[in-house]
């Protein structure tokens, strides 16, 4: 009991640091992706800090409340709260932080679905057609991708015997995962394709349609929540792909500072690699407009492939 309390007290500053880093990095990561996409497309590349500046400027502006949206006013804050809660549950640099026992793949996917749903509800508030069409498209995508999540969870459960994120990553960190690495990488790819609604081509135009009637601090909260959701999906997928980079807690004590710094570096490296993959996917393969069905198909393909590779590895050595 005392040991748990001690671990919790010592881990709280680390959790705060993790949360602050995630919040600080989320708009930067989106800025990096947009910068790369614009640069590769030959357009003038905006600064990577542009989104941060925009969010801060929005937060300082006077809010705009369209007629009929009084009921959805609280949805913006709740959406940001759901994104922050998801951030707390996905480890970035170290395992074993306070609240790690709450983290579960399905719970995190559900919280990130709530973020998407908050955007949808806000857009449907005024009841106008253009924002409504974009919101319905978002809700449809969210509902369709629900079919992929259980398959990914099945892969994690079959491979490691646990579906809790902390336990899963700790098991992969410790054990010999030579045969499990490939299926979990494929499952992480499926998770990334199914979950990342806000980073594909056309997502910006769709979000602009959805949030056309929202302004001021509400808009700032929703934009920050969108960025956080993208970063949480990328962090989760990155953790599953390379769990070795995470620092482990030593009993009740937090990880050593050097291990923590190494974990932080590994997180940045994973995120950078995934950003590069996302840019490549946005430029080369998929756009949002016609890609919803393709995304579902590709995500399901990755999930099924992960199961096949997992069992092939078990049966043939």
């Amino acid at each position, binding site marked *: 009991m005392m040991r748990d309390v001690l671990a919790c007290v010592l881990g709280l500053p680390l959790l705060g640091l993790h949360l602050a880093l995630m919040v600080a990095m989320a708009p930067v990561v989106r800025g990096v992706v947009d910068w790369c996409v614009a640069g590769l497309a030959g357009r003038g590349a905006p600064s990577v800090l542009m989104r941060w500046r925009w969010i801060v400027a929005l937060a300082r502006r006077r809010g705009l409340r369209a007629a009929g949206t009084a009921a959805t006013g609280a949805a913006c804050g709740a959406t940001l709260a759901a994104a922050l809660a998801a951030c707390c549950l996905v480890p970035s640099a170290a395992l074993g932080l306070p609240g790690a*026992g709450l983290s579960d793949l399905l719970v995190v996917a559900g919280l990130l679905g709530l973020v998407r749903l908050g955007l949808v509800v806000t857009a449907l508030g005024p009841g106008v057609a253009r924002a409504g069409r974009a919101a319905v498209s978002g809700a449809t995508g969210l509902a369709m991708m629900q079919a992929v999540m259980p398959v990914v969870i099945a892969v994690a459960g079959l491979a490691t015997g646990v579906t809790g994120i902390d336990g899963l990553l700790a098991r992969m960190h410790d054990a010999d995962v030579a045969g499990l690495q490939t299926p979990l990488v494929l499952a992480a790819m499926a998770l990334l394709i199914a979950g990342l609604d806000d980073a594909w081509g056309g997502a910006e135009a769709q979000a602009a349609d959805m949030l056309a009637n929202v302004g001021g601090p509400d808009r700032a909260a929703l934009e920050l929540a969108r960025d956080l959701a993208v970063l949480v999906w990328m962090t989760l997928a990155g953790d599953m792909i390379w769990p070795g980079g995470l620092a482990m807690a030593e009993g009740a004590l937090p990880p050593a500072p050097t291990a923590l710094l190494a974990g932080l570096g590994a997180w940045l490296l994973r995120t950078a690699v995934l950003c590069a993959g996302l840019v490549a996917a946005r430029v080369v393969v998929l756009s949002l407009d016609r890609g919803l069905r393709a995304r579902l198909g590709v995500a399901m393909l990755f999930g099924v492939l992960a*199961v096949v590779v997992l069992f092939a590895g078990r049966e043939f050595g």
Partner: protein
Amino acid sequence: MVLVLGLAMACVPALASVPLHALPAVVRVDALSVPFVVVIAAVGLASGTAESPSTLACAALACAALAATTGNPVLFGVGAATVLPMIRAGRGVALGVLAGAVATALLADGGGAAMGGWRLAILPAPVLLFATVLMGLSPRPLSGARHVRPAGAGDLAGFVLGCCLLVRMLVDWPAGRIGAPWGMGVGGIGLLLAMAGGARALTAGDAPRVLAGMLAAWGGVAMLLAGLAVVGRADDLPLLALGAARTLFLLPAGVGMAVLAAILTASHIAREAGPLVLARAGGLAALMPRAGATLALALAVACGLPPLAGFAVLWLLVQSLLALPRADGLAGEIPSLLALCGGGVVSGLLLLAGVRMGAILLLGRPRTPRCAAATDLPPARLMAVLSCLGVAGVVSVLPGLWLWLTRAAGWQVAALGAAPEGARPSLLWLSAAGGTGTFSPSGIVLLFGLCGGVVLVLSRLGGGLPARPAAAWTEGAPPSPPWMPFGDPATQVGPGLFVGRLDAVLGLTRLLRGAVRRLIGAVRRAGRWGAAINDRAAALTARHAMVLVLAWIVIASLVRIWAG
């Protein structure tokens, strides 16, 4: 006629097997009936306070409560068969009563003590049919006014009694263990029916029918869970059976009470704002904030948003499917993977149906004069609804409390005898059947609350200016003409948009218009030809009966002579 026949079939063994002095022992509240009786009593209390409760619904609830308390298969069958015509109508009821009579007759031999062999082999079929009709499940994916009845409080009686029936007749009463293939079959059919229910909820035209579809989807999930409990018992996996049973007990108490709250709120709102046809109603959140918030919360539980009771049921379902026995490598894993995908599809359909109903009814603008003139309900009229929602909320946040109350039933389903002292379920945590994970709804609520508090404090510290009210941007659409006082429907979000978008992405209509439609046409043509051939054969036989008999005698004689 069939009803009378069914009841007679069920009653005849009862007269022989139930001695009169044993009657008090037959009608009793045992551990397994507690989860269901408590929920039915709560449903009765909540719906009894409505302004004009249906007498038939009250009678159905009373009969359901009586049936759930019986420890005898015959009386249970009679009770369930009595409830059935009160909540359903049509040809399916006769089939259901007949199936129930058959199932009861199979179980009636001394309470199933001497049961085994061929009886166990055919028992799940009538039980499945009985429960399907009792819970209003149907394979029809589209919701039409002719085929789907609006949900009422009486339907909850059928839902809860259907769950009870599945557990009693498939798990508790049979003396032997029903085979695992039957469990897989029941689960598979349940999953298909859940998907059909979700599709009906998504395509329904009014709010009560959306709720009927949602209730059907959860009924299918209950059937899947009963199938998992059967598999767990058949394959000696008590933890799987225990996990499935606990999830099945959580379903009526959490989701059932939330659906009841939604049904009652919708009926209250309909009295104020007119029929809740999705194409015409709208904007109720601004006009009826209290009722709107209650309906939104009830829908959030019923469509499985985290970390509420619907999500907890889906989480436990996924974990139970992961705990299924595995054999033969990848090939043996395919059924559970398909079931997991199916569970995801059900969850997605429920989510989209809930968002569609909530967004169209509560958000946007009112579209009819009566809707525009609706006033909010006083808190006193929402007391019963809030009580139901409170029960669903407590079960959502502290599911362990409900599981602790029903722990003996779970152990009974898992065939583990009496619950050991140290093996009580945790109040705060839900555990996976296979030990693959834990889920703490209260922890997630606390985390969510802390994050919400941080957001609130930061927004207060930021000292932002109050929001400026403005007209919604109409994307350059011209102002509505005078004969459209509630705006041009083409510039608003309608219920068809949700289904249309899903259809456009998946191409379902194209599929239906193509191969499936041709297949259905071919089957119908074959049926017509078969009927015509049958008619002609009957007419020919009637006209030339004597010649045919003589020909048959000649042919038989020749064959006998030839055979020696």
